[in-house]
């Protein structure tokens, strides 16, 4: 019984922290985690080519988001200036409609705040906007007006005046089928290839050959590298990512993107319309998901090369010593812990790879704050879990 107490404390503690996160306002402004910025924010702000985040209260208030395109349109994935600006609305003429896309519930207060600053006295457009019931209709109508709105959004083509607009569009435009096909193909490849390999490997192990090997292949076959050597390899990978793809490495946003795909398939009308799943973590097959698939196979490759590839459920001696040999314990605790982990990554804006390493290498303050937080609770939890065996 006594062994369960620390676990209960940890779980309650994490619930408390999550509650604290909800209470703390700035935490709401969660950036796309482990993810590169849109080209809008990258050129305008990160490279400071034409910063707008300090111009006008509306920009200041939204600067923590990467949401330029939600109001202004344009192609936020294009790095080419002309292409990115195609179909962009530079000056927002229909302010109520723009605010309404995200803030349907308190439209009036939001509108009045900026209207005073902009000297807009005509509130007739506000009333018409309010008459148009329903968030989705307003958003769809607004986005529908733009000739080249972002491909990822796939706005439902409904007319703002038609009665159908009052109901959320039942069927969303299908999400990137090519991506799904690639993903499916890779999954099948993984299962078939993995299974094939296991059979082959078992046979190979049965007739172990003992030939002399070169230094290079000797190193590749080593199970443990010096962490410094592996670190150098990861550092080079990070540099290559910036050089070849203008991206930083990260893992947790891919999980959120996969979640967003599921949510947008399962509940396109309700949960799919929330700001998080529509704008911050839009569905689709993106760079991070491709990277994560690569990580999976890369890890597999590492295990294969050292000949330690094996299906494992719970064979870590340290874990067994602390929690016992039961398989289900590893599963349940792993699952709950992973939820906590992913939730924290969502709030912080990244995980150990996407924030700590990728942010740290760019000397972003967030990375170091995150690492400090991670170690504070990490050490405490380890203390609680291990206690006398510390």
């Amino acid at each position: 019984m006594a062994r369960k107490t620390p676990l209960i404390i940890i779980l309650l503690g994490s619930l408390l922290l999550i509650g604290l996160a909800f209470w703390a306002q700035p935490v709401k402004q969660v950036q796309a985690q482990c993810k590169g910025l849109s080209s809008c924010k990258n050129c305008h702000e990160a490279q400071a080519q034409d910063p707008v985040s300090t111009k006008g209260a509306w920009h200041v208030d939204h600067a923590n988001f990467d949401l330029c395109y939600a109001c202004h349109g344009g192609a936020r994935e294009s790095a080419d200036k002309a292409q990115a600006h195609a179909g962009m609305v530079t000056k927002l003429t229909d302010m109520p409609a723009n605010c309404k896309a995200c803030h349907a519930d308190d439209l009036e207060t939001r509108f009045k705040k900026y209207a005073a600053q902009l000297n807009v006295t005509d509130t007739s457009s506000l009333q018409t906007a309010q008459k148009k019931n329903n968030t989705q209709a307003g958003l769809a109508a607004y986005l529908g007006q733009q000739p080249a709105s972002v491909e990822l959004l796939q706005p439902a083509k409904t007319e703002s005046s038609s009665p159908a607009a009052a109901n959320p569009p039942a069927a969303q435009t299908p999400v990137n089928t090519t991506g799904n096909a690639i993903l499916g193909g890779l999954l099948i490849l993984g299962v078939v290839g993995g299974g094939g390999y296991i059979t082959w490997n078992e046979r190979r192990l049965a007739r172990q050959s003992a030939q002399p090997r070169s230094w290079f292949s000797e190193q590749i076959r080593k199970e443990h590298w010096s962490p410094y050597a592996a670190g150098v390899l990861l550092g080079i990978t990070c540099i290559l990512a910036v050089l070849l793809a203008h991206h930083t490495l990260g893992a947790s946003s891919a999980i959120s993107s996969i979640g967003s795909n599921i949510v947008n398939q399962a509940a396109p009308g309700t949960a799919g319309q929330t700001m998080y799943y529509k704008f911050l973590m839009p569905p689709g097959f993106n760079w991070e998901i491709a990277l994560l698939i690569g990580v999976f196979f890369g890890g597999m490759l590492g295990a294969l090369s050292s000949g330690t590839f094996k299906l494992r459920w719970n064979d870590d001696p340290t874990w067994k010593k602390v929690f016992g040999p039961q398989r289900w314990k590893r599963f349940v605790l792993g699952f709950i812990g992973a939820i906590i982990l992913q939730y924290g990554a969502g709030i912080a804006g990244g995980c150990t790879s996407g924030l700590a390493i990728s942010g740290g290498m760019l000397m972003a303050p967030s990375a170091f704050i995150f690492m400090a937080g991670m170690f504070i609770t990490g050490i405490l939890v380890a203390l609680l879990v291990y206690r006398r065996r510390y």
Partner: protein
Amino acid sequence: MDFTSTIVALILGLLFGFALNKGGLTRYANIVGVFRFTNLTVIKFMMTALAVAAIGLYIMRGLGVIQFPGAPATYMLGNLIGGLIFGIGMALTGY
């Protein structure tokens, strides 16, 4: 997502996963060890990667070869609370 960038991402992911596996970051004992100060693999690995990447990137930017991608946004409270929650999960699961 065009075909080339998918392939590039996949290859980078392969290297990433390979480095993690060889560095021992896929093992529970190594991850938890860093929080117990019994095994500092994670720190050695992460900080080496960070230093190599930072030096390389800053040199390359200085030479004008690359431009930095957008760095993760800093919002003190969010980063800290996120980190605190993340630490719990990390020490608990060892992933």
